[in-house]
């Protein structure tokens, strides 16, 4: 569920919003519907990993990966698909961590509320 929600919302929002909406979306989604910490991390990770890789390929394949090849040389990674993986992993990690934080944020807030109630 988290996976689908993040993919769809991020895909739509990223058309107009800067890249860091993935952080906001992953955080909020997991903060609202994240069931476990594991799910929050991995589903956020894969959602953005696949979304970014997919969209990058959508731009890069018709270009015969010419640009990706040049940028790969520039960065020292050398191979275009390695650059693609870096793009996916890095963004996935950031999303995953944000999702994880979102989940724990809710947990912390719930715990706090319970604490207050108990008190």
């Amino acid at each position, binding site marked *: 569920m988290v996976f689908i929600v993040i993919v769809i919302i991020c895909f739509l929002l990223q058309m107009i919003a800067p890249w860091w909406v993935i952080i906001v979306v992953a955080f909020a989604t997991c903060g609202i519907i994240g069931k476990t910490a594991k799910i929050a991390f991995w589903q956020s990770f894969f959602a953005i990993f696949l979304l970014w890789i997919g969209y990058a390929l959508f731009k890069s394949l018709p*270009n015969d990966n010419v640009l990706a090849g040049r940028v790969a040389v520039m960065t020292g990674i050398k191979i275009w698909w390695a650059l693609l993986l870096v793009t996916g992993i890095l963004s996935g990690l950031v999303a995953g961590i944000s999702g994880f934080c979102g989940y724990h944020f809710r947990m912390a807030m719930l715990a706090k509320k319970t604490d207050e109630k108990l008190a």
Partner: protein
Amino acid sequence: MNKIKALFCVIIPITLAFLFNTKIGQNPPLLKFLNPFMGFWQNAENNHFIFNHKAKIKGAIDKIEIVFDDRMIPHIFAQNDHDLYLAQGYVTAMHRLWQMDFQTRFAAGRISEVVGEKAIEVDRYQRRMGMVYGAEHSLKGMMADPKAKEMILAYTEGINAYIKTLSHSNYPLEYKLLDFKPENWTPIKCALLLKQMSAVLAMGSDEFYMTNILKKFGPEVTKDLFPDYPFKEDPIIPVGSKWDFTPLTTPKTPQSFTDATTGDVKTKEKIEGIGSNNWALSGSKTASGYPILANDPHLDLTLPSIWYQIQLHAPGVNTYGVSLPGAPGVIIGFNQKIAWGVTNVAADVLDFYQIKFKDSSHNEYWYNNKWNKTTRRLENIKIRGSKDEIDTVYYTHHGPVVYFQKPKYGRADNVPVGDALRWIAHDRSNELMTFYYLNRGSNYNDYRKALTFYTAPAQNFVFASIDNDIAITPNGKFPLKWKEQGKFILDGTDPAYDWQGWIPAAQNPTVKNPPRGFVSSANQSSTDPTYPYYINWEFAPYERGKRINDRLGAMSKATMDSIRLMQTDNYSILAQNVLPAVVPLLNPESLNATQKEALSYINKWSKRYDADEIAASVFEIWTKRLAFNIWNDEFVVKGIPMRYPSRDRTVEMILKEPNAKWYDNINTKQKETLPDLVNEAFKYSCDSLERRFGPINKDWRWSNVKQTNVPHLAKIPGFGSKILQIGGAKSTINAISETNGPSWRMVIELGKTPKGHGVYPGGQSGNPGSKFYDNMVDTWASGKLYDLFYMQTPDDKSGKIISRLKISK
């Protein structure tokens, strides 16, 4: 506890967002850059589908149609001049926005604004040399002319109309990489770009070095080693041409001679790089009976290309050629009736004046027997990530006092400290009109008229027309000087040292339809010594010019192919002159096996710098080392920056003065002779090649030693070309060195319909993610030319069209 946990859960994502959205050191903001929705992936252009477009621009007066051919070259069809230049601005920005922006920022000394503190010396240098000051004057000149004003304003409007269509996702790649934004174009940027061309072509100055040489060796030696006319020459205006005007009287040479203080920088061998070839053959020497014109300007090669091909069609004009991204009009090209091209003239239009200040406040300086006030110009340099710097530059009536302290910056090596700069590029000018009239010209008189508008950088304008007129004019605004004025640093206190007027434009050297049936130039001396005015004491070496004239002289029934092959001629006149003198001096008994083998290559050598010639590699390093052996001991003195005598003078000495005292190395006890130096240099050459590549094998080939490539304008790795295995050398017609060479090769066959052929080592697009970024490099490297598609109407079917752009109000 939970509060802290919640806080961490918020802080971590925010930190991540910040971290990957910030430029850190050289690195772009990482995820902002990698984001496929807005980052660099967006710049990957579709190689397979190219669409037609429509655009609305408020300022357009009428409908404009732009047709792109299969090399993405735009052919603009407009109904009036305004729309023509508006569209030129629009399409140039579409393909080259970052380049235009970056080049003009560089010219204006605004690089620190983008890259931070590390560019501060670059910016200071640009400002202190008066680039902005000059551009402001130049802009006044352009805006005073209604036609030029219309051109510039329409061009600016077109660029800005394009910028307005952009959002972050489609900014050119380099903006994303360097993390900055395009800014609106302004007319001053056109002026800055033209000033930058002056800086590239006419900022050379040896007077600091020459003054040191004069001080160290005295006038006798200086005169002997640095003569005012070369030993071997084949001037642009053929020897014996008559000057059909009454010259103005030139100012008298002042009695006194100056000397100057010196700093501490190293002597450098004069680097030969920026040069060019052009020539025109009259119909009497061509197969078609109509003239053929050729031009190949040699500049530092970059991607995106220096030039941008374009066809401009509107009532009264239909011209095709190359433009400079940032300036309206076609600079080198042709139309239905005429063709023209340019090469650089090494005119001395930059002089330094030694200034006597009253005190260290620099508020007053001594001139004409009284104290005069300096003016101050404050240069505000913005620095990314740091406070602005305000740099104060003092101006005398000569111009800016460039430095009071020697900066640690290579380009400033030849700038003497405490001296004022007088430079033609500071003057008011309006070069655009020259190109405006050439673009529309139809005959010799139009050409002559167009040239009168031109100030700097001085160029040899070659010309051919369908009426079978050919001509060449070393043209620019030349100061009226006494002989050798500006060879050395000038006395800034004495009005006799000032520039005292100008050579009348009509008296600039020129030749029309010479009996030999062709005109040519390759940056050599403009004229023989009979020309009544002083332009400079030294020009580029004569070898390319000589070879061109030899070949054109022998040519008859020339076709486009014979001219094309000539542009890629690798034959070395230098080798022809020097080899017969130095090979006999070699002592074969003292050579080892590799050196003997290298000698046999030299003996069999065709004297061509072809890609696979091993002898060319040996010869190149050998002669460089020989010059070093001869001059380095005397001309490299710590604390006194000087330069070597010219190659021409060195060759003369080798051929005619076997016992010159300069051969002796003054740092050794024994007395060296020319044969000693020749042998040492030869061994040095072979040994250094052997160290690099092992015993003689195909890695010794010239192309491998030379390593020609076309780097990115900002030297971004991966964005340049591969290493090109091609021949050519500085002293050959095909003057390709490592990253310098023919930046545009063009051959125009005039006739009922003109036929153009051309190529540059790059592509139309400035986007490294486009297949049109470097698609012409291989054709250029192989020495072939494309047929240029000179369209008569937007629906002309003679060439392949891949897309159309319609602009309306």
